[in-house]
């Protein structure tokens, strides 16, 4: 794959983008409501039949949600993996996913509507991330990477314990199923407004990570070297962590807990574009978006009952990760 890099830096990104486009078309064109592609196309320009308009209203947000959540989780995962120099770093490193799950579960327990549940999930994720970062800052140990990981584990464990408590207390015939389904993840329950809303924090976080680019490489060398190379290490690291937390919280708020994308996509992207953050972050986002499209399509491919994408991402992601890991370790 090295020759691809030397050929054209933009070529891998182009290929990924084309694949994503094909995937998007796949999601848009298939579903239980049978609409001809021509009808769909004219609906895109506002001139289709009512059925086609309906289909767009339903499949469009789903597509948008899958793309943005996949990209967000993958970008956050890549950022963490670079920053912490840890190939097993995942977006849940700071306990953000668990915190978001707890927020949503609490909201569902109190009988809130979908908008409030999403808001609570977003707030919960940021709270967990903030807790982890705050506790790590208190320890004042060197550049704090180890402290961050430990505090993230603690925050995540606390959130999980809280979640367990909520599950026990929830009413078993209505609240408990609702909580369980929410946690397992789905791209189909978002409306267009909600998906666009989520685009704001995801876009912001993504823009920050993309702008950080080579600075993430510098930060990965450690605080001392980063400062010696003339970068305000603490501030940049904070920005990177905040961006990743923002993206992960928004993704979980929109779609529930979808694991493995954030872990898998950076590894796959690394095989294509190499280690430099400036290329790895956008490539990871593209791979993540693609992966999300695939599992979204599979979620409703086996009958009318929807398979939660959280389960699908684990079922596909774990073996794929193993395969990638074996392949890369064989190479080196």
């Amino acid at each position, binding site marked *: 794959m090295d020759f691809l890099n030397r050929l054209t830096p933009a070529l891998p990104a182009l290929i990924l983008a084309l694949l994503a486009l094909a995937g998007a078309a796949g999601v848009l064109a298939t579903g239980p409501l049978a609409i001809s592609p021509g009808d769909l196309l004219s609906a895109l320009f506002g001139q289709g039949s009512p059925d086609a308009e309906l289909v767009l209203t339903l499949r469009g947000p789903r597509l948008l949600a899958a793309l943005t959540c996949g990209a967000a989780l993958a970008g956050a995962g890549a950022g963490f993996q670079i920053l912490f120099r840890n190939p097993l770093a995942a977006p849940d490193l700071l306990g953000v996913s668990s915190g978001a799950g707890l927020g949503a579960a609490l909201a569902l327990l109190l009988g809130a509507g979908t908008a409030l549940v999403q808001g609570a999930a977003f707030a919960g994720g940021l709270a967990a991330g903030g807790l982890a970062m705050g506790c790590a800052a208190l320890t004042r140990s060197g550049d704090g990477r180890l402290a961050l990981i430990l505090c993230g584990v603690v925050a995540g464990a606390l959130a999980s314990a809280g979640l367990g408590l909520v599950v026990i207390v929830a009413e078993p015939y209505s609240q408990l199923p609702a909580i369980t389904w929410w946690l397992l993840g789905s791209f189909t329950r978002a409306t267009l407004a909600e998906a666009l809303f989520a685009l704001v924090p995801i876009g912001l976080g993504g823009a920050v990570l993309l702008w950080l680019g080579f600075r993430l490489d510098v930060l990965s060398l450690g605080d001392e070297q980063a400062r010696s*190379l003339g970068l305000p290490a603490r501030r940049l690291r904070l920005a990177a962590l905040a961006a990743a937390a923002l993206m992960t919280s928004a993704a979980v708020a929109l779609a529930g807990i979808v694991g493995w994308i954030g872990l898998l996509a950076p590894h796959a992207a690394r095989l294509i574009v190499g280690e430099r953050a400036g290329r790895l972050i956008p490539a990871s986002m593209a791979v993540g978006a693609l992966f999300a499209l695939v599992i979204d399509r599979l979620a409703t491919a086996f009958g009318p009952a929807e398979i939660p994408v959280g389960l699908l991402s684990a079922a596909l992601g774990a073996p794929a990760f193993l395969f990638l890991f074996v392949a890369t370790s064989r190479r080196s």
Partner: protein
Amino acid sequence: MSGLLLEHLVAGRAARGGKGFRLPPLNQSVAPGEVVAVIGPNGTGKTTLLKTLAGLLPPLAGSIHRPRAAWLPPPGAVSAGFSVLHLTALGRSHLRRWSSGLAPADLEAARAALDRLEVGHLADRPFDRLSSGQQQLVLIARLFVQDAPLCLLDEPMALLDPAHAQAVEAAIRTLAREDRIVIASTHHLPLAARADRVLALGPDWAEMAAPARALAPDRIRALFGVEVDGCPCCGGPLS
């Protein structure tokens, strides 16, 4: 070109649970183009002093007037999976405050520096796959790219075979020749012997002197507590 000026500088670590230590106050000035070797037993605070001079640690007392500084950690402290070229080009990070990527000019400068140190052929290899000596040369190339008026090197010769050690020493000389201040801590006394001045850090004293004086047997005995008539680490002649 500005020089380095230390006024009653007390470097050290603040006592946290009784583990602090202080170096003796230093009043020194170093002019551009000078190479200063810092010698002393393990644990007297050479690394702490270098980090303080680099601005990575706050001084406990006194002040430093210094130009922009670049710091090179000991060999083995830098680990990176990306390519040598990219790592070297990162030396220009201080120039890219707001842009989202390194400029092609940065890569050019990196390539030029690598070629100068005759490691240009390693440009596309992952940094972690190089030997210690090669890594050290790459990092010194990065120092050139950083173009800082003050260069602080922590034990640059450690773990190096004679060939690479020579190349590193030559690179240090070049750094200084281009009007930079180079301060390097080392156990390699022949390097100290060839420096312009030697700063000896004893347990509770510090003395800056010419190499001939600083490396005299009685000073060595006072510093390390051993008798030597050759370099303690490689046995070669001292001057």
